[in-house]
């Protein structure tokens, strides 16, 4: 008996410290990587997918490496995958962007707008410049109370526009943005242009910095809210879509 016990102990003994070391190392790794020890785990698969658009929106030209970017060629295939995957029922767009390439931004906005599945956007922190059309491209949009959207004219920074054609080209680009925003939100063209060209709001530039509640009162964004409201709205839209489909079948 006694011998048996001893043997058992000697068998287990070398293993135990090893186990401890492993779990300790794991926790240390996690603290180094995330600054925390545990992230909540969810068992089931999600029917809502989430697209985060952060930093600069990068299109035709690769920006220097110090820029945090969201690349056009990464986002577009993801939207295509979301559209064709039957398990995905809704799309949540999280925006915290300083703007970026006009064509890439408009392309992303058009892709989201033409999605057959319900989509909801939240502007957190900032949805500036080309972030504005992306924010309004979804079926319903939210803005955090503290988030801002800078609306300003499209221009070539620090350059004098030399040729009249250049000005016309820029003006056309600007028209594309204005038209898209007008079509996908409740703001009027006059109001949007007024915000875009107003003086005295930005220290060194023309334009307006629109904060949370103001964006809602101008009709640019649907509601002030955060992730809870956005997910709730998205689930409502998904449910609505299901009911419409059922009615069609009957």
């Amino acid at each position, binding site marked *: 008996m006694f011998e048996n016990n001893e043997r058992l102990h000697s068998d287990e003994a070398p293993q135990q410290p090893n186990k401890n070391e492993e779990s300790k190392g794991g926790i240390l790794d996690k603290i180094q990587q995330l600054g925390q020890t545990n*992230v909540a785990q969810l068992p089931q698969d999600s029917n809502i997918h989430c697209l985060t658009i952060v930093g600069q929106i990068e299109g*035709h030209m690769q920006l220097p490496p110090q820029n945090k970017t969201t690349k056009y060629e990464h986002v577009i295939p993801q939207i295509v995958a979301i559209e064709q995957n039957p398990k995905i029922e809704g799309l949540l767009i999280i925006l915290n962007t300083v703007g970026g390439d006009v064509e890439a931004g408009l392309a992303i906005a058009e892709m989201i707008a033409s999605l057959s599945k319900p989509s909801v956007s939240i502007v957190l922190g900032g949805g500036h410049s080309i972030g504005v059309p992306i924010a309004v491209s979804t079926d319903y949009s939210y803005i955090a109370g503290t988030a801002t959207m800078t609306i300003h004219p499209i221009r070539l920074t620090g350059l004098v526009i030399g040729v009249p054609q250049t000005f016309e080209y820029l003006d056309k680009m600007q028209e594309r943005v204005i038209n898209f925003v007008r079509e996908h939100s409740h703001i009027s063209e006059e109001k949007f242009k007024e915000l875009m060209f107003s003086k005295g709001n930005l220290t060194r530039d023309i334009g307006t910095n629109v904060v949370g509640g103001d964006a809602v009162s101008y009709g640019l964004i649907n509601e002030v809210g955060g992730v809870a409201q956005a997910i709730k709205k998205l689930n409502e839209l998904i449910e609505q879509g299901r009911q419409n489909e059922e009615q069609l079948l009957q």
Partner: protein
Amino acid sequence: MILYTMMPQELIFQQSYHQEQSQPKLINHNGIPVIVEENEQKQQQIVRILSTNPQDYLNENYYPGQILS
């Protein structure tokens, strides 16, 4: 290309001083798109997850900073 951004041009196109640093690249690891960077030990370290599936962000093997095997 026209940039429509509130960030000043000189901030976007400033000279970067660490050119030799490895370029982060996009790879597909078990169906999860991740951006990885090579660390000093020549291992692939996750910088960012590009998946749209929120569940992928809860996968312990794909936390930013994790080393891919």
